[in-house]
């Protein structure tokens, strides 16, 4: 559905040229929920704006549904944008219009008849769960409700692609969950392709099928969510999956050496690994932190172990754990 070919974007800033995106190539399939995750300033927002040409890439091609975006005339581009709508972190509703008229807005722009637009808008408000808020103004709604109205507005022109630019970053965890459920639900029902821009791991875990990790304008890792998050390879991915500071404060690294054990698949996750090692090999380890997550139906886990007792113990533990199926061991 969306093909990005060698996208580069350079801004002329006050302190010289800034390369926001460097040679990005992504292929987003039909009906996927595709996550693009990265820290602040990684270039996520610029990248998503290149998809609907709110930012024109300096180099490279954006092909959506077989159409090359940079070849379109301004009028054709406006037409095409009705198929690639967007929701935002700040909701960006028209504050002087009622919710109903906000949802009518894109249809009004497209020149649809008022009565038809109104009928469709009411249907959409029903879909997003706000049938009773048609006459309310955005300021009278909570953040989550405003985002629901924004979703209804984005769906008004029956788009093929929905771009979500940090759409849940201004919401509390509970509301975030509800909004993500709604997006997932719409994706399931309509088969719309969704691109989710976020800095939150939890968002990608919850709804995405695929993910690209963006760091400093470069895609450092890309693939199915489970595969990428279960064994992050790049530094940027590791920083996201194992946030700094989570482990350090728990035990003293000077008295023991660290090992990270990564499980993939429920078979590995349900093995009493550490106990078995203690009984069979007599190696005692300290579990500094551990977590199990499920991505796209598969279970993944990671454990940070502290191995006291010097290098011999450490190497023995490493050798034992490396021999178990579906488990990878890394020195930390």
């Amino acid at each position, binding site marked *: 559905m969306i093909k990005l070919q060698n996208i580069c974007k350079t801004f002329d800033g006050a302190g010289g040229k800034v390369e926001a995106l460097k040679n990005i190539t992504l292929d987003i399939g039909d009906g996927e929920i595709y996550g693009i995750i990265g820290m602040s300033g990684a270039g996520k927002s610029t990248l998503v704006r290149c998809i*609907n040409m*709110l930012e024109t890439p300096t180099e490279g091609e954006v092909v959506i549904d077989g159409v090359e975006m940079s070849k379109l005339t301004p009028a054709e581009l*406006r*037409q*095409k*944008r*009705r198929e690639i*709508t*967007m929701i*935002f972190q*700040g909701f*960006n*509703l*028209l*504050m*002087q*219009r009622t919710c109903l008229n906000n949802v009518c*807005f*894109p249809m*009004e*722009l*497209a020149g649809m008849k008022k009565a038809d637009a109104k009928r469709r808008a009411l249907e959409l408000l029903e879909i997003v769960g706000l049938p009773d808020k048609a006459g309310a*103004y*955005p*300021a*009278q709604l909570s953040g989550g409700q405003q985002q629901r109205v924004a979703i209804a*507005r*984005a769906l008004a*022109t029956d788009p093929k692609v929905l*771009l979500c630019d940090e759409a849940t970053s201004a919401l509390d965890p509970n509301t975030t969950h509800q909004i993500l459920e709604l997006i997932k639900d719409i994706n399931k029902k309509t088969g719309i392709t969704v691109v989710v821009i976020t800095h939150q791991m939890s968002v990608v875990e919850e709804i995405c099928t695929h993910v690209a990790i963006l760091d400093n304008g470069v895609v450092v890792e890309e693939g199915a969510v489970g595969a990428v998050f279960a064994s992050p390879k790049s530094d940027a991915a590791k920083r996201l999956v194992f946030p700094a500071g989570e482990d350090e404060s728990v035990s003293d690294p000077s008295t023991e050496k660290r090992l990270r054990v990564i499980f993939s698949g429920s078979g590995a996750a349900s093995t009493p690994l550490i106990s078995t090692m203690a009984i069979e090999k007599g190696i005692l380890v300290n579990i500094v932190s551990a977590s199990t997550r499920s991505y796209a139906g598969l279970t993944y886990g990671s454990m940070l172990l502290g191995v006291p007792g010097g290098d011999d113990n450490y190497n023995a533990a490493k050798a034992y754990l490396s021999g178990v199926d579906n488990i990878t061991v890394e020195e930390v």
Partner: protein
Amino acid sequence: MFDNIFDSQSLAQAWEVFKSEIPFAIWETLYVTVLSTAFAIILGLPLGVLLVAGEKGGVRPLPAWLMKVLNVIINLLRSIPFLILMIMVFPLSRLIVGTTVGTVATIVPLVVAAFPFVARLVEASLREVNPNVIEAAESLGATPFQIITKVMIPESVPSLISNATIAFTTILGYSAMSGIIGGGGLGKIAINYGYYRYKYLIMVIAVILLIIIVQVFQTLGTRLAVKSDKRLKK
């Protein structure tokens, strides 16, 4: 100067003027101000829109030299003192209304003085619109014209109303000066009786009436602006 202001003779004279001339003067002041404000908005609103939409990075960027010319013209017109401007636009008044004196003729200099001011007020109002909302409209396929008419102007209505009120009260003040070129209204009464004929009571009455008009319109404008603002939770 005010020692004989309340003696029976001046009271009687004031009452006479109040009955015979004041009602018409109020009417003249109002219609000159309302018409001048209306024309100033008709010229100033599109100009203000142009200043915001046409700048670099605006919704419909215009050539930089054109923006520069517009800005210079506006600043130039705003720098000329109104008293001088009234005389400078005589040829224009003659062209438009056929004469340079009288109440109707004063509308021309008032509009010329006020429309650049209105353009700046409109510019300030439109700049308050959240740029993210404009981006959202762009992402939904809005044309530059649709962004102006369906987003920028409607979203800044409360601020535009407040600023229209400011324009009205400012033009009311200017209109009082136009007594000098034969324009009618409360300003003329204040100058003719108070300044030329030392009838201070009549001058004070005219000024009080001007104050009341300003108060009434300011209150109405503020109320309307608050009422139209849907961002306030009610």
